[in-house]
């Protein structure tokens, strides 16, 4: 696991520190803490003056203001924000002097009786009853006054009406208007003082507001309008918040309520030697300078990382037990790692949430690559937080893509849950003052602080639990335009709306995502990127059920599929599977969608919904009558097209792709030494996303095979695509594939290296698990692949090659690939000159090898038989660490396999060689003593060599019996799906 912080603006500095970090040798190192020390003054960026070139489009700001501030109960009160922190007397003096020259005799400072009022503040609430407009303008001119809200915003936007609208403004997007209005109408503002805040900052029109927002002082608690809640007297008091991090020094001036510091490492100190833990604690609870969200919360500091950033699962286990004993309410984990198979850790996190600890964790800093979600933020019971910058762009570093626990048979969950500011956020410095840092380590405490503050606003704390808090956060989050759900989750944290929802909350179940619209782009990418059709592999949506009624729950009877007949719902088949017990606080609802046979040549939109009823034991019910229930409706909308011709359909073999965790599957590219594990899922929607998008743009339909090769109808597909496969093959699969190819299916294999000497060389001592790790395969399982293709007289070698070359006028980079050792003599083989990377790894010697066969094309001889294409390296179609893509080559190979068109650029290449016969060097053998059988679905341990298991049955979906509704869905109110309120 590592700590998540970095400064994305200081790449070189980061790199240096990373390497330093490596040299001081730690294992648990998540991200090193780096940052730029800023001047300790409150703000270094000037706030735009009244006539600044504020380009929030007038439409947008007007809209926002109009809707956000339409209630006028506290209409005479204004927030006056200062340029720094001043005592109450100084603040009063400034306001008096500013208003001296105006006739505003009738004004007063509204008293704030909260614990923070003893300390210097940077704002004041003023009631002004006469000459409001001139008073505000005068106030604005005072040198120490930064801004007056919200009425000044109104004035400004009116004033800006003439300056014209930014044409590209997404604020014109009517969906956002609808979203707002539906929310407004269904949920009138309960607490009017909320409207005092500057909802302005929340406008999600990131394009139009760019220039203005850039100038925002990056004071994250105030940008999220925590001051509105502070002013109402909520400051986090009575909430126990735990920071699991690098510790905190005893006398840090920013903290007033550090209840306890404990050390769980083998270093005898409680102090933070790095600054990571101090920063995180500051974002949550600092009371001065860079203010945190909940200054009065009870801080529990758990030091679980050493100064070298070493940490172990066992330290966490003991520390977590202590957190349970201490009845911690909110726990921040700005840490994570790829090992979701660390059962002791995952189980412990479940145990924490089951004990009502609200867990908030950083989603990881491995973006923009997909398939990079980190544990524990990827758990259903944890609030996983991604990062955005102050312009509402997803931060580049923020991890994304679906969870990969469910592969290969299922489909991943949507994560992160929400996003918030994580780039250039100010927080407490190691000893004093403030600094600015970036990373999802920063975004996580923003949410943890907000959650702490929110919990302190709720009168009946019994209602606050890990599920209800998450429900409130995701239901109130603001969706960012143009970003899909696997990057932003439910959108951007909105503290005040979460406050409103939480304070009217009634225990209930809800769904994440709350609807399935496979036509909605880009939010529902990748679903929206490919319509469904009869005969295709079922599309699976992995919905998370959140159950705020109790830590344990169950689904009553079975979920019901109700197609809308007037909207062609009967053209869709739906199958549902779900967690037998929803524990802790959550479970899954896997919805598989297929097209009915009668729609095989139909095109259109079909709709319906799934109804689920969740029940929980009624613990707090005095009558003790048994159970509480909650029924949730999941609208489903899909686009159906006629089944595409065979040649356009590609089947991606997911079943034979294995990855870390649990075993050591080394990277395909051996140069990537600081990322040695293959852990991104190898799925078309994770690290093969670009390839998928490319194939879609070329008009191909790509489906995923999550079951053995024996489980698909080959007559439906033009090409089976096998990339970087690590799994073994059942004998039945080998036989079936041979038959399929005889009958016209084609096969493309992108292989990778497999050399037992190199595998022995890249073993390492893993401090996390305290054991030696030996790879269980090479980059791909070449011996297994050779078994699969042997029948055609083909084989890959145990060579390991690297280098740049040109093929068909394209620049190519071969990154740790193998060569073709054997190929039929009537096939086409292309060779290149490459470096012998095996020699380099083993002996640190450089040697260039000419005529390395890298590509082979072959037409099988049987009548109507398919074609086979082999290539020795997968790096050029893999997003992770890719240097040069070779999608052109994939296109050419598909032209060959699917359409039988032989690319002349390859057949007439000067690099064409006589197909190798495989006599010059031995084929690779499986590494003796490898543990692949531990992770394999195909092998099982046996005396002597592992043997194949019996072939498993193919997955079978039992389609729900439809209960059709003869009604028309008027319109989905997808935007802003608010939790139901039961009176």
């Amino acid at each position: 696991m590592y700590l998540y912080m970095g400064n994305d603006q200081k790449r070189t500095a980061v790199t240096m520190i990373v390497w330093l970090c490596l040299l001081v040798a730690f294992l648990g190192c998540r991200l090193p803490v780096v940052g730029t020390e800023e001047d300790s003054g409150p703000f270094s960026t000037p706030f735009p003056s009244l006539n600044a070139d504020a380009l929030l489009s007038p439409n947008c700001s007007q809209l926002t203001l109009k809707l956000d501030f339409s209630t006028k109960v506290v209409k005479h009160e204004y927030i006056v924000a200062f340029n720094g922190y001043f005592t109450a007397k100084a603040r009063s003096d400034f306001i008096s002097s500013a208003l001296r020259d105006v006739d505003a005799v009738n004004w007063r400072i509204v008293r704030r009786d909260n614990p923070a009022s003893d300390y210097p503040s940077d704002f004041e609430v003023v009631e002004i009853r006469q000459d409001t407009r001139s008073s505000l303008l005068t106030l604005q001119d005072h040198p120490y006054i930064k801004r007056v809200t919200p009425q000044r915003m109104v004035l400004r936007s009116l004033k800006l009406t003439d300056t014209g609208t930014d044409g590209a403004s997404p604020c014109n997007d009517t969906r956002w208007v609808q979203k707002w209005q539906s929310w407004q109408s269904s949920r009138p503002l309960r607490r009017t003082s909320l409207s005092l805040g500057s909802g302005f900052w929340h406008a999600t029109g990131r394009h139009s507001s760019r220039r203005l927002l850039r100038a925002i002082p990056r004071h994250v608690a105030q940008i999220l309008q925590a001051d509105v809640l502070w002013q109402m007297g909520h400051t986090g008091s009575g909430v126990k918040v735990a920071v699991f991090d690098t510790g905190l020094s005893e006398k840090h001036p920013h903290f007033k309520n550090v209840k306890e510091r404990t050390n769980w490492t083998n270093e005898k100190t409680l102090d933070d030697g790095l600054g990571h833990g101090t920063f995180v604690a500051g974002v949550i609870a600092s009371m001065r300078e860079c203010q945190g969200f909940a200054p009065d919360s009870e801080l529990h500091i758990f030091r679980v990382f050493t100064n070298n950033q070493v940490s172990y699962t066992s330290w966490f286990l003991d520390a977590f037990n202590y957190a349970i004993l201490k009845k911690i309410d909110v726990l921040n984990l700005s840490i994570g790692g790829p090992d979701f198979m660390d059962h002791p850790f995952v189980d412990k996190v479940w145990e924490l949430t089951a004990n009502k600890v609200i867990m908030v964790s950083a989603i990881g800093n491995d973006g923009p690559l997909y398939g990079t979600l980190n544990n524990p933020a990827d758990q259903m019971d944890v609030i996983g937080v991604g990062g955005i910058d102050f312009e509402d762009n997803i931060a580049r570093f923020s991890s994304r893509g679906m969870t990969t626990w469910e592969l290969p048979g299922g489909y991943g969950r949507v994560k992160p849950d929400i996003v918030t500011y994580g780039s250039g956020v100010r927080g407490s410095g190691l000893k004093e003052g403030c600094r600015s840092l970036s990373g999802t380590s920063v975004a996580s405490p923003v949410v943890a602080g907000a959650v702490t503050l929110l919990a302190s606003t709720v009168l009946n704390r019994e209602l606050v639990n890990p599920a209800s808090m998450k429900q409130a956060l995701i239901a109130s989050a603001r969706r960012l335009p143009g970003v899909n759900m696997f990057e932003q989750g439910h959108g951007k944290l909105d503290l005040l709306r979460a406050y409103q929802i939480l304070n009217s909350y009634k225990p209930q179940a809800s769904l994440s995502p709350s609807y399935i619209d496979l036509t909605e782009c880009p939010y529902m990418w990748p679903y929206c990127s490919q319509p469904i059709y009869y005969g295709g592999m079922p599309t699976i949506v992995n919905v998370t059920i959140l159950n705020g009624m109790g830590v344990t729950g169950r689904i009553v009877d079975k979920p019901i599929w109700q197609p809308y007949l007037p909207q062609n719902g009967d053209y869709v088949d739906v199958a549902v599977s779900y967690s037998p017990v929803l524990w802790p606080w959550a479970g899954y609802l896997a919805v598989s969608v297929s097209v009915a046979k009668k729609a095989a040549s139909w095109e259109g939109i079909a709709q319906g919904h799934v109804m689920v009823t969740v029940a929980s034991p009624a613990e707090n019910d005095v009558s003790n009558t048994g159970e509480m229930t909650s029924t949730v409706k999941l609208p489903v909308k899909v686009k159906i097209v006629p089944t595409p011709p065979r040649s356009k359909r590609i089947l991606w073999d997911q079943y034979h792709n294995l990855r870390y965790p649990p075993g050591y599957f080394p990277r395909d590219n051996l140069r990537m030494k600081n990322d040695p594990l293959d852990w991104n899922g190898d799925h078309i929607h994770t690290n093969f996303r670009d390839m998928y998008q490319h194939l879609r743009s070329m008009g191909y339909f790509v489906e995923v095979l999550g079951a053995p090769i024996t489980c698909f109808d080959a007559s439906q597909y033009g090409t089976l695509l096998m990339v970087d496969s690590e799994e073994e093959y059942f004998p039945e699969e080998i036989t079936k594939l041979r038959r399929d190819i005889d009958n016209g299916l084609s096969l493309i294999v992108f292989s990778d290296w497999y050399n037992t000497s190199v595998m022995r060389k890249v073993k390492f001592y893993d401090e996390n698990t305290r054991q030696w790790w030996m790879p269980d395969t090479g980059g791909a399982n070449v011996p297994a692949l050779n078994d699969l293709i042997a029948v055609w007289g083909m084989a890959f070698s145990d060579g390991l090659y690297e280098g740049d070359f040109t093929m068909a006028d394209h620049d190519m980079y071969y990154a740790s690939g193998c060569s073709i050792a054997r190929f039929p003599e009537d096939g086409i083989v292309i060779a290149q000159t490459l470096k012998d990377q095996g020699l380099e790894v083993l002996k640190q010697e450089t040697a260039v090898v000419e005529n390395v066969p890298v590509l082979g094309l072959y037409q099988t001889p049987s009548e109507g038989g398919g074609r086979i294409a082999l290539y020795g390296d997968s790096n050029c179609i893999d997003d992770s660490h890719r240097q040069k893509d070779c999608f052109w080559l994939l296109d050419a190979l598909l032209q060959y396999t699917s359409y039988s068109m032989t690319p002349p650029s390859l057949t007439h290449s000067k690099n064409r060689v006589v197909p190798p016969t495989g006599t010059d060097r031995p084929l690779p053998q499986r590494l003796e003593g490898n543990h692949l059988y531990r992770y394999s679905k195909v092998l099982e341990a046996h005396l002597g060599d592992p043997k194949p298991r019996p072939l498993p049955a193919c997955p079978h979906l039992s389609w729900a019996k439809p209960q059709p509704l003869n009604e028309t869905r008027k319109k989905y109110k997808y935007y802003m799906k608010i939790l139901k309120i039961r009176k």
Partner: protein
Amino acid sequence: TVSTKILRKKRAELSYLHHSLQQTSTNESLTAEERTIHDRTLLEVRDSDHHIQWKVQFILGNSSRQISQCRNSIQGKILLTDELGYVCERKDLLVNGCCNVNAPSSSQYVCKSCLANGCCSVYEYCVSCCLQPDKQPLLEHFLNRAAEGLQNLFTAVEDHFELCLAKCRTSSQSVQHENTYRNPQAKYCYGESPPELLPI
């Protein structure tokens, strides 16, 4: 962007780097191995001079004491244990937090699934078994010899119930190679010894 990609397997990078780039001897990796073993030992070492200052109040006498409110084990998927040692299904939990002793699912001091070494398969049974009055000497013995790494926890527990809740949880003593249970079946232990070490 490579700089931001620090995997969990950080040590992996280091030794990998040594192996493939610098051809250093395996000494450095061995040093790393030795050091982690040392770290590990620190956690487990029992300093004979050191006794944690535990303050657990054991309730003497019989089990039929009457209380109006119960604390219970909160977390269970199906079962709960209350502070009187009753295990019951969630549906048989009374509003006051106690198990309904009349419900068929309720019984007191249940050691079901517990092995001779004091490790059980079900957390709630572990807690219930641990609450049995005759377990007091065993628990006191444990507290007197508790490893330093567990000091924070066991100096903070105040009574028999809190002690059993805490003792039965999986902890640093429950794992091998950090990410694997020593015994995935019987991992909740009220007894002194860690779970039996099973091969992976």
